[in-house]
């Protein structure tokens, strides 16, 4: 057996996995998105492109805009919180580095839904936080709670890539920056930041993509004006019994996210080529 064929053999399990659990389901979503339903909500396949016309109905615009807004706010907050955390662990973690990373990751082994429910218990009107500060602050059922839930839910996806980028960077570079009379800010701007910008981009994509399609945070922590596109899609599948429209929304959503993914991958590839 030639080495090439041997190597190709390794692709079989992964390839099968992708075909069975990714390509075929995706194909089914596409097929449903062009279908319709009978009177009782059962999906019927066919050619009904009007599902896609419906996606661009102006009624949904505020929902889409809100989802993107919430997701962008989430990215910014994750960056502001996650970068210093990653920086601290990578630069000052020393022999505790791995323990600290493990501590960051550990809560994320708990299901996102469960963690969001924990937030309700923590932040409720008669919850732990109000009890400790002796206040009567309405934390939950606000847009801030939704963004907070999203930040908490996806923060680790920002911390890890930034940490990896910082960890790869030679600490001697920072010293070199200082030797060249760079202040802390100038050293950061001219040395550290350029070395971590790819990590930040990766984190941005990894946080933005799930956040923009999230429905759990808005459903459990949101107020009357927190409806997101994920909730709209969920409504089509679970309540409206309009799977074709739900599938069309999903497809458009995926196409939108795909564009961002491609932009990111191209920028990452350029970076690798430059090195």
């Amino acid at each position, binding site marked *: 057996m030639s080495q090439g064929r041997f190597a190709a053999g390794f692709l079989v399990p992964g390839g099968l996995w992708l075909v069975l659990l990714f390509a075929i389901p995706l194909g*089914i979503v596409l097929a449903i998105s062009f279908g319709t339903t009978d009177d009782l909500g059962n999906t019927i396949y066919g050619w009904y492109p009007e599902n896609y016309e419906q996606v661009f109905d102006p009624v949904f615009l505020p929902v889409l805009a809100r989802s993107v807004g919430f997701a962008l706010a989430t990215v910014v907050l994750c960056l502001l919180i996650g970068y210093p955390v990653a920086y601290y662990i990578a630069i000052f973690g020393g022999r505790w580095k791995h323990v600290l990373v493990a501590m960051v990751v550990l809560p994320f082994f708990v299901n996102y839904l469960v963690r969001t429910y924990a937030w309700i218990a923590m932040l409720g009107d008669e919850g732990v936080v109000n009890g400790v500060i002796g206040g009567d602050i309405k934390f939950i059922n606000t847009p801030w709670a939704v963004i907070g839930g999203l930040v908490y839910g996806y923060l680790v996806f920002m911390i890890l890539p930034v940490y990896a980028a910082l960890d790869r960077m030679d600490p001697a570079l920072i010293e070199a920056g200082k030797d060249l009379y760079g202040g802390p800010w100038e050293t950061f701007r001219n040395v550290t930041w350029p070395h971590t910008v790819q990590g930040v981009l990766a984190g941005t994509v990894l946080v933005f993509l799930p956040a923009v399609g999230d429905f759990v945070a808005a459903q459990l922590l949101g107020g009357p004006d927190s409806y997101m596109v994920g909730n709209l899609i969920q409504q089509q599948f679970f309540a*409206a019994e309009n799977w074709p429209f739900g599938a069309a929304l999903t497809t458009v959503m995926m196409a939108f996210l795909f564009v961002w993914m491609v932009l990111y991958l191209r920028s990452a590839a350029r970076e690798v080529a430059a090195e």
Partner: protein
Amino acid sequence: MIDGRIDRRGLLVAGAGIALAGCGVGDSGGGSKEEVEKPIAKKVDGDLVYFNWAEYIDPAVIKSFEKRYGVKVRETYFDSMSAMMSKLRSGIEYDLIFPTAEYVQRLIQGNQVRKIDRDKLKNADLVYPTFQAPWYDDGSEHTTPYTMYATGLGYRVDNVPDMTGSWRDLGEADTGGKAFMLDDFQEGIGMANQVNGHELNAADDEALEQAKDYLISVKPNLRGFSSDTITTMTSGNANIQHLWNGDIVNIRNQVDNPEDFKFQKCKEGIPVGSDTLAIPVNAKHPGTALLFIEHLLEPENAARNVAWIGYPMPYEGGATESFEGLVKDDPSINVTVDDLENGEQFENLGRENRRAWDRTWTEVKAS
């Protein structure tokens, strides 16, 4: 336009059959008319494979059934009607399912549930007259009712003392910014229809335009939309919550001051819904299933289930007395035979009307 179902077998060849069945698309998993009609012999014909919502039966009632007939009850659970339907479509064999009334109509139309000979069922005559021939199952030939629920407003009488008996309290009462509407388009628009003097299931343009305006006018008084009513009320986050009457029973069981938690049936109308018991057409042990239904109808067992679930059941005798006992300090939580006569039940809207309702709801939520 091309119209038509894809042949399931054809897709199996393409290798997509399993995935497709899992997605709940494909044929209905129904049987033939003969299979639906075939009489069921009421005798033990194996262990019971049972498919229900979780926590929707007193475990002691299952235990006593196992002991009585020397069989095992193999329990599995669904978390939504669509999940139940896709499992059925994918061909999994259950002996007993618990569909909501609206889904019964679909199951019957798809030849997916067996006929149940009511004359064979002891205590079937205890079922309230309204449910002897319900809208979803002509002559109650395929199903036996299980629980029922009325929708109204749950409220904290200590924080909102001035309730007026109207749905309008949700949007107008001073709740300190703590009012929740059910996150359920059917309940939301149904309520609006009743406020506007339309039938519960109205779907004409005028009714829906008014429903939209009304619901948007309620939003400023709302803290949010939530169907997790037990959490919102027990956590103190809600002073008024649009909810189902059984939930208030459960809420009162969980708080230190149950006397402060009240239920208001609203004067504009009482939406009533119900769950049922049915035997799928591919059941392997329909005889045991029939015995189990009979077991649930037995007044003593029904009383225990009511006490355990917190929802009323439309049976005379034990079930009714049990629920009256649960709500004796606030009888308004009860659903009486009179309420049922005057109540309005959610019906299947059909495709176009359902979409119109959904669109209205989306407009409300997106606004």
